[in-house]
């Protein structure tokens, strides 16, 4: 889709990068961001960082359950009859 109207400014493009990556923008807004990115190298850097930040958030927060907590919760399930 080719957007109508002038190129959006950097501030507007950067504001929408996560929604752009989420594909949560309307088709027209998605195309506007895409059009901006085709021209603006700095915002491409912002986009790449937004992508890295999303992946970082998804993976870096993974954690393990302490054995004593696991044992207590398993005991709780047994008490419930599960």
């Amino acid at each position, binding site marked *: 889709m080719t957007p109508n109207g002038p190129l959006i400014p950097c501030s507007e493009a*950067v*504001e929408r990068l*996560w*929604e752009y990556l989420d594909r*949560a923008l309307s088709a027209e807004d998605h195309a506007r961001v895409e059009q901006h990115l085709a021209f603006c190298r700095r915002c491409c*850097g*912002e986009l790449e*960082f*937004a992508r*890295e*930040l*999303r992946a*970082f*958030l*998804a993976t*870096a*927060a*993974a*954690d*393990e*359950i302490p054995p004593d*907590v*696991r044992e*207590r*919760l*398993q005991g*709780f*399930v047994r008490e*419930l*009859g*599960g």
Partner: protein
Amino acid sequence: MATQAIPGLYALARRLTDQSPEDLVQECLLRAFRAYGELADDAAGPAWLRRILVNAFRDRLRKEMRSVEEVSVEDVDEFSLYRTLAEEDPFPYSDTLHLDFLRAFGREDVRAVLLRLPVRYRAPLVLRYIEGFSTKEIARLLDEPLGTVLAQLHRGRKRFERELWDYANESGLLAKGAGR
């Protein structure tokens, strides 16, 4: 099924709250036990349990989510971690400055940063980007209008960026990273 789901439920509870995550998992298991007859397919059990846990969390914090202070939109929206890193250049000898910044964080650091966010921003962020729920589903789970969830996600992302930067400065992560 419940036993196998415990680690995932506990991890989710710890990301949502630092106040007795174990109790939250227990509450979830109790509710699941009572409602087990409603589960038609055991294969859907893990997702069903996660929804029950989020419901229990929502009920526990309903008051807090309503009463938390709004963060100044101006203050949050103007911050860009990408630009701040480029301008402050905390690792002057790095060719991959932005990546090195993220790599300085350990898992417990990320959890600490998430817990610094007001719960109304933290919950949608965790559910969307760590647990993978859709925005519509988050709206349903948190009993909020979709527009509110989208706005919370937007501010939550900006706030998360700012908290990453503040935490890195306050905890000495930047100094450690710069020394590598």
